[in-house]
């Protein structure tokens, strides 16, 4: 059933979230809060070198320390063959994952896990880890992407030959993969252009910087069964990866989803869980591992830093006739940067006849990248949206008008294949053009920038159950970790279908043994896909309730109508009966066929793509190079906002992460390839005094492929900020800042250079 134009009573309102009180009182259990009787503390020893061969690991001194109960090294784990599988949003090579979890013959970045200890206290575990004696043969290292692509670069993987070039290379390379997307005839396109603009842009790796460090508690029993408490974006993902890396049956692994303290894509991989399981197997005790913040920075994945080259050609009237891009993405120590989506997203916003995008996936001696909110899109769009601004200036056009003129619409064929359908980009731009922020006069000394962003959003596999309790209240369970309020939206959709108040519905997240498979929380898929499963489960329950009413009334189920939480005769022909409400039907369930509930699994298709436009005013302190965000407005097509507050929150949070990416966040390496800023003091995320209120404007263009019109909202908002801010800085200073972050020293240097 489709509810898009129906008279909604719950969806679109702003009830209190069901897990809220737990979270404001400190009762919510994150994985670091879990305890088990007899629990040991695990500690991981990490490489101090960026690139080295492991010659020998001597654990004897550590093993002799009182309180040490188990030690593991790479040799304690199966050697996983080199095979690629498709998981979730992209490919996963399990050999790489295994060797990222714990090194085997080489360490590939400073912070790479080498060994681990379990001991009776965290202090003993830490002391023991320091007693493990590792002999390294230090190798030359390479940090930056273009240096890693050079012919004479130190090679990370002797068996890596660039995929996607013809003929097949004979020499190993740090370039894992070359990808190319073409549409039309790029040379003819540029030949036909009146105006051409070219720019080269660089972005730095940035960490998701979830405030909760990774943590888990694993208990392995003598019969081979394992229980894990972990915070992650997908407990089914943890089960699958641990099973693969430890060669176990999935049925022997039960993963309980602890509350998750932020992920933003960074908790779609595993790091510590297989290590904790092996330590538990060896010691016979539960083992808890929690990372320090420093370990999070040194050992877990940021998103790629990149070089982005953009060339745009346009007619005098602003019609863009040719667009090309070269993208060089750092993958970290193992292949798998988001260069693929990067190559798709930059030009996906525009209807351009001739496109050519070339992308490189490049390894270097940094932590393996992990997904970060719209992986790849912010990087590619920083280049494209900055270049568009300069192209507009060259054409003498308003930058918003240039975007309006070239905006993708329904029916626009993208350069990577699909044709856009049911998108709301034009509506977003129309709202931007009329928004008081855009139309207001600019204050003296301020600059204003605009930039846009796109993300595909995904659907995929989800499971939800709806149980009618004996008193007519309702319990919903899903397999999707609630990372930002999805319990509320699931409950709201179910309440809407059942026609009951939202506080009669409570939502939980079920563990891997208690509900059907559910793919991880990522790709902006939960409200779309898991919401679809929950909606269908509620509909199935309504169907069953109608049957029960029909049985009581002795009429056909077709003659029963469900509205406002009760069964009614569908018309006068159906007979004259008093309505049977949920509580009454629940009470009589035992006598009408047993408990009423439904579990629905879906593989949801048709996730509607999302578009956003951000407007930003800045002022620049020319003495210090410090940028103040004076005003910020983020406009986005959100499909249908189930709980508008949490949709706004996604947009405000994403925009603020983008502000950090634009202005401050970066990895600083010394000449040994060691990270020099692995903490929140020197890796500078935005704090409350760095940002103004972020106005989130929700444009609702419903996605017809979802019962309530939902499209994903969490990822688009991190795409536009970097270019919006760069464009605003250009407005305020006449200086184009092509390199991120646009931090005070860099901007000050650029101001000095400009004279």
């Amino acid at each position, binding site marked *: 059933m489709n509810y898009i134009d129906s008279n909604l009573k719950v969806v679109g309102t*702003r009830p*209190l*979230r069901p*897990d*809220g*009180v*737990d*979270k*404001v*009182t*400190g*009762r*919510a*259990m*994150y994985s*670091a*809060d879990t*305890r088990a009787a007899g629990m040991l503390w695990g500690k991981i020893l990490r490489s101090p070198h960026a690139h080295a061969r492991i010659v020998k690991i001597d654990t004897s001194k550590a093993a002799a320390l009182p309180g040490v109960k188990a030690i593991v090294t790479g040799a304690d784990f199966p050697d996983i063959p080199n095979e690629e599988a498709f998981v979730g949003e992209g490919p996963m090579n399990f050999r790489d994952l295994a060797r990222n979890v714990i090194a085997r013959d080489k360490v590939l970045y400073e912070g790479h896990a080498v060994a681990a200890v379990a001991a009776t206290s965290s*202090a003993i575990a830490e002391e023991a880890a320091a007693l493990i004696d590792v002999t390294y043969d230090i190798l030359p290292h390479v940090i930056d992407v273009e240096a890693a692509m050079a012919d004479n670069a130190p090679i990370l993987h002797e068996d890596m030959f660039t995929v996607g070039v013809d003929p097949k290379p004979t020499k190993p390379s740090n370039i894992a993969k070359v990808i190319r997307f073409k549409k039309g005839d790029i040379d003819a396109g540029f030949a036909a252009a009146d105006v051409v603009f070219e720019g080269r842009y660089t972005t730095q790796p940035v960490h998701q*910087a*979830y*405030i*909760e*460090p990774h943590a888990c508690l694993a208990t392995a029993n003598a019969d081979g069964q394992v229980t894990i408490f972990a915070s992650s974006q997908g407990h089914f993902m943890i089960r699958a990866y641990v099973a693969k890396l430890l060669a176990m049956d999935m049925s022997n692994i039960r993963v309980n989803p602890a*509350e*998750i*303290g*932020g*992920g*933003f894509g960074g908790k779609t991989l595993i790091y510590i869980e297989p290590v904790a399981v092996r330590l538990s197997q060896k010691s016979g005790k539960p083992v808890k591992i*929690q990372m*320090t*913040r420093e370990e999070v920075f040194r050992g877990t994945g940021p998103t790629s830093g990149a070089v982005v080259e953009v060339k745009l050609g346009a007619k005098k009237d602003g019609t863009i006739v040719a667009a090309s891009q070269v993208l060089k993405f750092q993958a970290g120590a193992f292949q798998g940067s988001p260069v693929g989506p990067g190559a798709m997203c930059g030009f996906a916003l525009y209807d351009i006849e001739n496109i050519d995008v070339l992308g490189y996936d490049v390894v270097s001696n940094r932590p393996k990248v992990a997904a970060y909110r719209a992986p790849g899109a912010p990087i590619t769009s920083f280049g494209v949206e900055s270049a568009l601004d300069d192209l507009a200036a060259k054409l003498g056009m308003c930058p918003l008008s240039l975007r309006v003129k070239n905006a993708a619409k329904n029916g626009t064929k993208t350069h990577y294949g699909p044709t856009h359908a049911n998108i709301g980009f034009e509506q977003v731009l129309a709202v931007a053009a009329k928004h008081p922020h855009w139309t207001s006069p600019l204050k003296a000394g301020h600059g204003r920038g605009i930039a846009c962003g796109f993300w595909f959003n995904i659907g995929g596999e989800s499971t939800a159950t709806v149980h009618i309790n004996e008193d007519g209240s309702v319990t919903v369970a899903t397999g999707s970790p609630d*990372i*930002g*309020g999805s319990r509320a939206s699931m409950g709201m959709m179910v309440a809407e279908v059942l026609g009951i108040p939202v506080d009669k519905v409570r939502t939980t997240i079920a563990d891997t043994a208690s509900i059907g498979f559910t793919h991880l929380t990522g790709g902006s898929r939960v409200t779309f896909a898991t919401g679809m499963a929950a909606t269908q489960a509620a509909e199935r329950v309504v169907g069953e309730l109608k049957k029960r009413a029909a049985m009581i009334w002795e009429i056909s189920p077709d003659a029963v109508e469900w509205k406002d939480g009760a069964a009614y005769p569908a018309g006068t022909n159906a007979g004259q009966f008093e309505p049977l409400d949920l509580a009454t039907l629940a009470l009589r369930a035992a006598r009408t066929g047993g408990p009423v509930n439904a579990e629905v699994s879906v593989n949801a298709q048709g996730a509607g793509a999302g578009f956003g436009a951000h407007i930003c005013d800045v002022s620049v302190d020319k003495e210090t190079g410090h940028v103040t965000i004076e005003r910020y407005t983020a406009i986005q097509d959100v499909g249908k906002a189930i*709980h508008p*507050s*949490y949709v*706004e*929150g*996604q947009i*405000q*949070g*994403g*925009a*603020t*992460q983008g502000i950090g990416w634009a202005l401050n966040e970066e990895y600083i390496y010394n000449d040994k390839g060691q990270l020099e800023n692995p*903490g*929140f*003091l020197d890796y500078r*995320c*935005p*704090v*409350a*005094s760095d*940002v103004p*209120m*972020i106005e*989130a404007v929700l444009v609702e263009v419903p996605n017809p492929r979802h019962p309530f019109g939902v499209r994903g909202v969490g990822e688009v908002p991190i795409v536009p900020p970097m270019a919006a801010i760069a464009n605003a800085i250009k407005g305020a200073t006449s200086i184009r800042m092509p390199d991120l972050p646009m931090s005070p020293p860099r901007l000050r240097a650029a101001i000095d250079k400009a004279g």
Partner: protein
Amino acid sequence: MAKQYVSTTINGEPTEFLCETQQTMLDVLRDVIGLTGAKEGCASGDCGACSIQVDGRLVCSCLMLGVEAEGTSITTVEGVAQGDKLHPVQQKFLEHAALQCGFCTPGLIVAAKALLEENPNPTETEARYWLAGNLCRCTGYDKIIRAVMDAAAVMRGEAA
């Protein structure tokens, strides 16, 4: 090393514990006493997720030793609500949807409570600077600031 005996008051209850001299108050709260509301986000005083009040003063418990609790009165997030009545800051965090993952929330609740005890009528800028020691990566701070300003108004008896 011999453990130290410490006598203190936590959330109004007289409390005794034994801790090692190098143990932080955060580790004592979480691992010795079992109050896990204060979170470890950095253990270096940069994120504020472990915020507590010591004799009313806002402190990062990761920067305080457990032995320093001797003779003090400590409030953790678990002691902010009175029975089943939420503190106005907690209530307004819920109403304004000022949390997403909720991991920074305990620290922010304690920090905001401390702000409003010291300054019942903060400007938005004062609230932003006071809370600048509490990192939130989810919300962009917008709804947090609104919640704190709204709670301040309620506590002044002005509000809606």
